[in-house]
């Protein structure tokens, strides 16, 4: 039971540790740091990295927290290990894939970019070294969504930001990566000036501050999907980390989106036209920020108005909880991880013989097996979340406006206006792509249903069997 091995770094609960009631309650977490901190008291090599016991730790005092008791290499290695494990066990990147990395300028997506680059350059080196050139190198692009029109940022500042982003991407070569600077108004098919106007009108028409912020997030995803699809990418990679996901868990709960929550917190989210992958899902924001600092990874700070409303409140709440207990973010995410994911939360089984057998085997092993094998979900046309039965039952008659655009109750409350006449007006301000997507999804759904009952349908003029 109580493990007495002094160097034990497993997760067993040690009774002698129970007596040490300090403010930091190091429960079992996924964090590498917490595992080793349980053996802190028994470790006599206080001046060296806890893992390799060879190099200098990042900091010898407890300033940097548990992570600081490792050397830079072990710390980086641990983070990269989590990244690589996520990528391989979920078959996120196959050699024939083209991956678009969404870069926001912040530390999480900066690390995502860096780690993808490391995989990318290694794949290139292997390709160059390999005589028969059997395995192609996956393609990598970088997308930066420019939201300056929303926040009225002066153009000299945006130019500086673009310059910094370009420099970062240029230095991540070879192999080179294409950079796309995507203005948020590109979700409209009209020209940029008209798009900016419509976007401004749209955001002004949403009265709820939280609704406005969330709508902007949905449009951001729409813009990323558009640029990925138009430029031949088949994977969209986000740098979402534990901390961000933990905040999303709480805010989704608070907005009544408990049903759709599991869709957003998995490694893979394939309900989109271009599947979205989250390889940094097991890393804490604190770790990623520290890595950027230690390795001198340049980040770009954007001028944004602070999150008000519910999102800001949740963010401060989670920060407070994390200060009280450094494993709280992990626990929150672990809870959400125990919810049943959806059928689209995995990459479809790869039958392509180009893909390594090992990759295919690994994918089968770790693939989540949700309960339903049949896609029976309808999606909100604004936020693309799967609709719960209660949402579907309580749908107001929005069908009068557009036949295929059903909406979740959260979007109905915080984004759509209350009176029906204003709803019509808002619909004209939304990008057409949203309606096209909804129609496409529902047609898919309808034809999938039809397939199921195909054998039983009798068409006019057919003989009965």
């Amino acid at each position, binding site marked *: *039971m*109580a493990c007495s091995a002094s160097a034990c770094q497993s997760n067993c*609960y040690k*009774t002698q540790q*129970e007596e040490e*009631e300090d403010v930091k309650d190091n429960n079992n977490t996924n964090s590498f740091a917490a595992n080793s901190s349980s053996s802190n008291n028994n470790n006599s090599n206080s001046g060296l990295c806890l893992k390799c016991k060879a190099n200098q730790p990042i900091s010898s005092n407890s300033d940097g927290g548990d992570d600081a008791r490792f050397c830079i290499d072990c710390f980086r290695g641990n983070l990269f290990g989590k990244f690589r494990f996520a990528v391989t066990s979920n078959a996120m990147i196959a050699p024939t894939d083209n991956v678009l990395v969404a870069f926001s300028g912040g530390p999480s997506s900066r690390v995502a970019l860096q780690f993808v680059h490391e995989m990318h350059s290694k794949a290139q080196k292997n390709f160059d070294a390999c005589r028969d050139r059997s395995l192609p190198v996956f393609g990598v692009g970088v997308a930066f969504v420019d939201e300056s029109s929303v926040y009225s940022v002066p153009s000299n500042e945006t130019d500086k930001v673009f310059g910094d982003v370009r420099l970062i991407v240029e230095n991540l070569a070879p192999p080179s990566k294409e950079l796309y600077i995507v203005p948020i108004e590109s979700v409209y098919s009209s020209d940029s000036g008209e798009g900016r106007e419509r976007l401004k009108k749209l955001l002004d028409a949403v*009265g*709820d501050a*939280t*609704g406005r912020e969330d709508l902007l997030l949905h449009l951001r995803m729409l813009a990323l999907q558009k640029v990925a699809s138009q430029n031949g990418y088949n994977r969209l990679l986000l740098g979402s980390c534990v901390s961000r996901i933990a905040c999303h*868990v*709480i805010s*989704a*709960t*608070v*907005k*009544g*989106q*408990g*049903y759709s*929550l*599991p869709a957003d917190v998995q490694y893979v989210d394939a309900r989109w036209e271009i599947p979205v992958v989250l390889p940094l899902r097991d890393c804490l924001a604190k770790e990623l920020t520290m890595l950027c600092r230690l390795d001198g990874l340049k980040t770009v700070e954007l001028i944004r108005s602070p999150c008000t*409303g*519910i999102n800001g*409140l949740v963010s401060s*709440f989670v920060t*407070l*909880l994390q200060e*009280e207990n450094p494993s*709280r973010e992990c*626990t*929150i995410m*672990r*809870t*959400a991880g*125990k*919810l*049943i994911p959806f059928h689209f939360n995995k990459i479809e089984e790869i039958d392509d013989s180009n893909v390594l057998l090992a990759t295919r085997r690994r994918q089968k092993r770790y693939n989540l097996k949700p*309960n339903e094998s049949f896609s029976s979900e309808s999606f909100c046309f604004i936020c693309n979340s799967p609709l*719960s039965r*209660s949402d579907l039952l309580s749908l107001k008659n929005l069908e009068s406006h557009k036949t295929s655009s059903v909406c979740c109750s*959260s979007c109905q*409350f*915080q984004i759509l*206006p*209350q009176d029906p006449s204003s709803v019509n007006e808002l619909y004209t301000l939304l990008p057409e792509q949203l309606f096209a997507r909804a129609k496409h999804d529902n047609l898919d759904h309808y034809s999938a249903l039809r397939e199921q009952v195909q054998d039983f349908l009798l068409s006019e003029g057919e003989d009965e069997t």
Partner: protein
Amino acid sequence: MEESADGKAKKAGARLCCLCHQKKAALKRPKTLEQICRECFYEVFEEEIHQVIVENQLFKPGERIALGASGGKDSTVLAYVLSELNKRHNYGLDLFLLSVDEGITGYRDDSLETVKRNEIQYGLPLKIVSYKDLYGWTMDEIVKMIGLKNNCTFCGVFRRQALDRGAALLKVDKLATGHNADDIAETVLLNILRGDIARLSRCTSIVTGEDGPIPRCKPFKYTYEKEIICTYAYFKRLDYFSTECIYSPNAYRGFAREFIKDLERIRPRAILDIIKSGENFRISTSTKMPEQGTCERCGYISSQKWCKACVLLEGLNRGLPKLGIGRTRGLNNDDKKDTKKTNGTKSIESKQCGTLDF
């Protein structure tokens, strides 16, 4: 967007009730922010609870129902509303007040006085069960021994059993508690924060424990705490005891409570949205039900060899305050030398420390 009654009958200066359009509005309803007069508020408040009772089929005619009565605002209003609705809508119920004395000086002894007054005011028979009688320990004694970190765990576990025993003594069919929407929303959040997926799947149920000794229901599941205190008890001036448990400042629930209060200020409906999320969480049904047996020591319902109360008690009696707290491999995996069944009311002999191997 928050609903406001601005578009409705609002005249310059005087605001009329948005329901009857006749009387002057006396308050903004916390749940919906509607401007409403007192009488209409009482009406919708009570009618909504009646609808919850009917739609969820909480009671059957002829049933004996115990109401958990702490003397606080929720249980006082519960007693008042249920006896009202019982008469008004002919539920045909026999109502009783059931109170638990945890032995907290300066808190429980005062609130029990309130319950005794409620017994007279509402004409409902009262039964009090005490920790001292059931377990041989008061909460004051327990806190003295274990400190202020896990005391809520002890109290909660003991209270659950105490209520069941009291309900059995009263021979009631169901137990109704005053848990309101805020409580349930807090519990949903707490279970998320703690990773307790099993509890998360059960905590939004309006009826629980149907396969246990006494089913319990929460008629106030969708009732806002603010509507209960500030408006109902405040306006009707119902007699209730309004201090927080003296041991509660350290409770972890405080975090969730603060957050929900801030949330309510921005978006009142968020409380119901949290409950809705809790109801809609996709949780595998296989994780829901632990295998049900009985405690070897006291015969109470338990999924382990010993029920949690017995485990905790054993810890208290042996001077091991951490027994049953956290994830230690504890008593239940060991061969017991002392497996005498007691009915829990006699005092328990303490064992020598260190005679059991963990």
